[in-house]
């Protein structure tokens, strides 16, 4: 990739060429470009068939039936539809929600909106290893709690929550359970039935699918009520109006189909590369891995490197595409709220790199990254007052 080693797959992934090929079949006049809601003619029906095939593929990846899948523009919209839609629908039952401090902003900001509307939200503090214990969730539940929201895999540190245990305790109490699975679905086994998940947010672009498409998988029996966020043509059973983007949806279906088919092998290969990366970086003094050592997704490694400042470290790594411990998706160098929630001070949070591997990451790229980071850390520590030497 233009000489740059791409280790930011937790931010987004390149689209798999096999996915691209299927998407291209839905764009021009020779393909299935028609509006899938226009089922009064053959091209529309063909497009609808492609959409429904993709729906089944995405559903199968998470143990759901096709009827449970509602297309959205991505996980952010799916999270918002789940949280706002369900909270509004079930408001008369209670106005309390439980989530964690390390959720994605798509969840945290939706919760803040609900607070502005009069809801109450309990934000659980994870342990220093990033895990939220089911007992913490249980202790936070109240008679008026209507929903618990917990992410499957944390996007910054890669820890994997025990969503099954939390789902079961919610189900026993008749409380809705929402899971943001943007980082974990298609990479780790996930089953909405076994894990008792009522609302599951998915995206395509974290699993080598296209950006701009996602899905909300929702429980059917008993049927969940949701108040939609968008009004219009009544697509997706009235829960998400808007013309369905056939090529995006087909891309998402293909991405999940491919991911699930190769999950075991890919997970093993990427875990091995991640461990090599960690082994290489751990040779440096003053380096620590963030998050639980084993209960984690295969592709994400967050490391805090003492004695270097994060922005300078990134400056010294022009050949690597990695994320720092500053807030993602913004231009501000605010220390990560996730790392701070785990007890990191601002300085250590800013001395953190997130390296995330994907399907196309190679052993030589990992070696290159270890070499580049080792050299950069050595250079910066050499000019820093006192402290560590590389």
């Amino acid at each position, binding site marked *: 990739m233009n000489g740059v080693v791409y280790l930011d797959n937790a931010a987004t992934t390149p689209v798999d060429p096999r996915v691209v090929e299927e998407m291209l079949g839905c764009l021009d006049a020779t393909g299935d470009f028609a509006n899938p809601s226009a089922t009064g003619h053959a091209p529309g029906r063909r497009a609808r068939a492609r959409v429904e095939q993709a729906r089944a593929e995405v559903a199968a990846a998470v143990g759901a039936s096709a009827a449970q899948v509602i297309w959205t523009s991505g996980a952010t919209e799916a999270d918002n539809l789940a949280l706002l839609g369900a909270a509004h629908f079930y408001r008369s039952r209670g106005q309390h929600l439980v989530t964690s401090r390390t959720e994605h902003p798509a969840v945290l900001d939706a919760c803040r909106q609900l607070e502005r509307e009069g809801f109450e939200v309990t934000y659980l503090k994870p342990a220093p290893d990033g895990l939220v214990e089911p007992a913490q969730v249980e202790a936070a539940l109240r008679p008026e709690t209507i929903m618990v929201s917990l992410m499957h895999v944390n996007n910054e540190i890669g820890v994997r929550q025990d969503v099954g245990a939390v789902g079961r305790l919610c189900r026993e109490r008749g409380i809705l359970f929402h899971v943001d699975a943007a980082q974990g679905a298609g990479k780790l086994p996930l089953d909405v039935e076994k894990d008792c998940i009522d609302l599951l947010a998915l995206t395509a672009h974290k699993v080598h699918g296209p950006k701009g498409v996602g899905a909300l998988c929702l429980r059917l029996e008993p049927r969940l009520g949701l108040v939609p966020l968008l009004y219009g043509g009544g697509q997706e059973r009235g829960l998400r109006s808007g013309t369905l983007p056939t090529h995006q949806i087909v891309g998402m279906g293909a991405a999940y189909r491919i991911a699930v088919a190769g999950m075991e092998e890919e997970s093993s290969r990427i875990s091995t590369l991640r461990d090599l990366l960690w082994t290489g970086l751990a040779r440096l003094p003053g380096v620590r891995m963030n998050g639980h050592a084993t209960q984690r997704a295969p592709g994400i490694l967050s490391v805090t490197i003492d004695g270097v400042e994060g922005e*300078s470290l990134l400056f010294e790594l022009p050949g690597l595409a990695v994320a720092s411990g500053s807030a993602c998706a913004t231009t501000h160098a605010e220390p990560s709220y996730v790392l701070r929630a785990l007890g990191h001070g*601002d300085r250590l949070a800013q001395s953190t790199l997130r390296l995330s591997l994907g399907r196309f990451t190679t052993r030589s790229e990992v070696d290159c990254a270890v070499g580049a980071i080792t050299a950069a850390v050595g250079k910066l520590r050499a000019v820093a007052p006192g*402290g560590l030497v590389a």
Partner: protein
Amino acid sequence: MTGLDPRYGAEVRRRMATMSGAGDLAAGPGVVRVAAGDREQGTEIVLAARIDGDRVVELRFRAFGCPHLIAAASWVTDRLRGASRTDLERWDWQELVTTLEVPPAKFGRLLTLQDAVRALARNWPGALRSTV
């Protein structure tokens, strides 16, 4: 768009590449060492100067901070070689803004560097400590 990060100008890139002026001076007659900033806050600077008579004859820096801060500390080691105590007292961080294309959000870090330069003046060998 090129691969160059537009947040950093040519002078910052050059100084980060060479780290000109980085290091320390062995303790000895005429050598003054001062520190400013707080690593916990993301900015820490140590300046070491060898002063001969009424002039700074050699200056070295160590810095923990962003590329703009490191480049600024490097630049100061060149700029203030040959300076008098009065020059140090009067030195103002604002001349760095244009030279290093420092964004406003980082002006506070340059003030930390100015604190270090002023501390050199206060600790000038044989001088009475300033109350500033």
